C-alpha cells in the first residue's frame, strides 16, 4: 500500500512538471494555432540559467528561479517577434518547421555556450525527505514543492484568464482573432504576452525537472517537451484544465507502467494509452468537439 502511495506521489509530481510544460504548449496553440516545438528547449535554457545563477554566482535558489523565469520570458518574446510573427499568415506547416529551426538553434546554441558535458543540477529545495506514517512513507521535498507549485500555477492561471483584462483578451483571441481585433484588442501584444507566460512557466518546469532528475545536458528539454506536447493533446489541446489533467495523468501512467509493467517499455505504454484515448475521444479528454460545417 505504501509503495503504491509512493508511486502515486512521484507520478503526480512528474505529471505536475509535464502539466506546467503542457500549459505553455496549449496556451500558444490556443492563440497562435501553432505547435511550438521549441518549447521543450526553453525548459532547458531555464534550467541552465538557474544552474549557473546558483552554482557560479551563488545566488539563493529562489533568485535563481526568478532569474531563469526572467531570461526565458524575454527569450520567448524575442523568438516570437523574430521567428513566428513574420509568419502569422503563412501555412501552419511553415510555422512548424520554423519552430523546429528555433529548437535546433537553442539546442546547438546551448551546446556552444555551455558545452555538451552533463551538469549536475543541485536541487533548489534540498534533498531532504519528509517521513510520514512513522517513516513508512518518505516523500522528498522536491515532490511536494513540485505538486504545490503546479496547484498554485493552475489557480493563478484560471484566475488570470477568467478575471483579468489581458486574460480575457487572450480567450477572445483564441476564439476568433478577427473579431477580437475589431473589438479593439491588440492581437499582436496578446500573443506576445501568451509566449511570455508560457516561457516563464517553462523556466519553472525546467528548474523543477532538474531538481528531480539532476542531469542537465543541452537536450534535456527534448523528451519532456514531446511528453508534455502529448499531454496537451491528451487533455484536449487549447484547453488549460485539459493540459493540467493530461499532464498529471501522463505522469501517473508513466510511473505506474515503470513500476508495474516494464521499465523499458514505459514510453510505449504511455503512448499506447494516448492512442486509445484519442480513438475514443478524438479531441482529447476535455477538448471541444468542433462540428464540421458544410
Amino acid at each position: 500500500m505504501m509503495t503504491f502511495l509512493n508511486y502515486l506521489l512521484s507520478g503526480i509530481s512528474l505529471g505536475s512538471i509535464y502539466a506546467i510544460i503542457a500549459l505553455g504548449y496549449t496556451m500558444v496553440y490556443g492563440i497562435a494555432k501553432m505547435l511550438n516545438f521549441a518549447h521543450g528547449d526553453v525548459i532547458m535554457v531555464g534550467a541552465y540559467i538557474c544552474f549557473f545563477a546558483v552554482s557560479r554566482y551563488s545566488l539563493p535558489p529562489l533568485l535563481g528561479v526568478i532569474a531563469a523565469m526572467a531570461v526565458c520570458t524575454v527569450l520567448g518574446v524575442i523568438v516570437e517577434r523574430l521567428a513566428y510573427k513574420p509568419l502569422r499568415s503563412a501555412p501552419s506547416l511553415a510555422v512548424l518547421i520554423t519552430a523546429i529551426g528555433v529548437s535546433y538553434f537553442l539546442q546547438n546554441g546551448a551546446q556552444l555556450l555551455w558545452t555538451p558535458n552533463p551538469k549536475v543540477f543541485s536541487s533548489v529545495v534540498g534533498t531532504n525527505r519528509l517521513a510520514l506514517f512513522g517513516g513508512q512513507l518518505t516523500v522528498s521535498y522536491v515532490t511536494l514543492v513540485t505538486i504545490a507549485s503546479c496547484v498554485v500555477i493552475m489557480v493563478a492561471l484560471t484566475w488570470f484568464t477568467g478575471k483579468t483584462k489581458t486574460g480575457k483578451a487572450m480567450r477572445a483571441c483564441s476564439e476568433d482573432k478577427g473579431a477580437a481585433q475589431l473589438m479593439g484588442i491588440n492581437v499582436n501584444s496578446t500573443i506576445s504576452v501568451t509566449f511570455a507566460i508560457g516561457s516563464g512557466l517553462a523556466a519553472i518546469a525546467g528548474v523543477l525537472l532538474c531538481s528531480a532528475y539532476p542531469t542537465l545536458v543541452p537536450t534535456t528539454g527534448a523528451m519532456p517537451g514531446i511528453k508534455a506536447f502529448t499531454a496537451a493533446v491528451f487533455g484536449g489541446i487549447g484547453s488549460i484544465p485539459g493540459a493540467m489533467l493530461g499532464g498529471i495523468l501522463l505522469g501517473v501512467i508513466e510511473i505506474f507502467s515503470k513500476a508495474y509493467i516494464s521499465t523499458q517499455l514505459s514510453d510505449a505504454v504511455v503512448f499506447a494509452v494516448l492512442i486509445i484515448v484519442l480513438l475514443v475521444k478524438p479531441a482529447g479528454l476535455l477538448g471541444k468537439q468542433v462540428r464540421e460545417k458544410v
Partner: protein
Amino acid sequence: MKTKKMTLNRNARKNYLTYGLVIAAYAILQTMSTTGAISSSLKGMLVPICAYVVMAISLNLTVGVLGELSLGHAGFMSVGAFTGVTAAMSLQTAVPSPVLRLLIGMITGAVFAAIAGVLIGIPVLRLKGDYLAIVTLAFGEIIKSIINNLYVGVDEHGLQISILTNKLALSDNGKIIINGPMGITTIEKLSTFTAGFLLVMVTLFIVFNLVNSRSGRAIMAIRDNRIAAESVGVNIVKYRLMAFVTSAALAGASGTLFAMNYSTIIANKFDFNTSILVLVFVVLGGLGNMLGSIIAAAALTILPEALRQFADYRMLIYAIVLILVMLVTNNPTLKGYLDIAKQKLVRKKPAAQAAEGGGDNGK
C-alpha cells in the same frame, strides 16, 4: 479536349524532367566517384542521400498529396531497416548473391513496413489534423521502444524472437541478429550507390503513377475537400489508407537501404528527430513537389558536411539557414522583395525573358 491533353503533357513533362535529372545526377556522381573526383566523405554519403530522398518522396505522398501531417515516418524506416536486415542476414547461406539478398531485404522491409502502415493507418486515419500528427508521433515512439527491447536470433531451426530480455536459446551455429538496445552489430554492407539510385527511380515511378492515376486524383480530392469527395462517392478510408500504406512501404525499403550501408544500426537512430528531419526536406522542397523533395533532401544532407569548416558552429548555422529560408519563402513582405529581385534579374536579360514568355505560351 485540347486543354486536357495540354495539362497532361505538362504533368508528364515535369515527371520526365525529374527522372532525367535523377539519372543525370547519378551518371555524374558515379563517374566522379569512379575517377576519384569527389571526397571520400561525400562518397560515403551517397547511399544515405538516396535513402533520405526516398524517405522525403514517400513522406511527401502523405503530407503533400494526402494532406496529413505525419511525425512518425522514421518508425516505418525503422521497421523496414530491422526486418530487411534480418531477412538479408538469415538468408546469408541460402542465397549467395549479395544483390539478390539486398533485393530480398528491401522487399521484406517494404512488406513489413506496409503491414505496420495498415495496422497504424486504420486507427490513425480516423483522426484529423494535429491529433493525427500526435498519434503518428506516438506510433513512431512505440516502434522505437519495441525494437529497443527486441531480441532476434537465427540458427538451423529458423528464427527465434523474444522481447524484453534475451531468452533466445540458440544452438552453437546460431547467431544473434537484433540484440535489444545494441541493435544489429554485424551488418554486411550490401548497399551501393547504384542500388540507392534504382530505389529512387522505382519510388518515383510508383509515386508518379499513383498520383496520376484515378486513385491519385481521388486522394487529392479528399485532401482538397473531404466532404465534397465523400459526397461524390469517393471511398475515403480506402484511398487514404492506400496513400498511407504506399508511403510506409517505400519508407521501409529506404530503411533497409540505409541500414545496409552501415555495419551497426540501433533503433534510436530512427527517432522523432529523424522524422522531423525528413519533414523538413518535404516542406522545404514544397508540398506535393517530388523534385523539390529530392533536391531538399540531397542539399540538406550535404549542408552540415559542407559547413564542416565552421566546425562547432555548423549546426547553429544550419538552424539559422532553416529559419531564414522559411521566413523568406513564407513572409509576404520578404517574398515581395524576392519577387521584385527576380523580376529585375529577368528584365536585365531580355533574351531570358523572351524564352520564359515562350515557355508560358507553350504551357
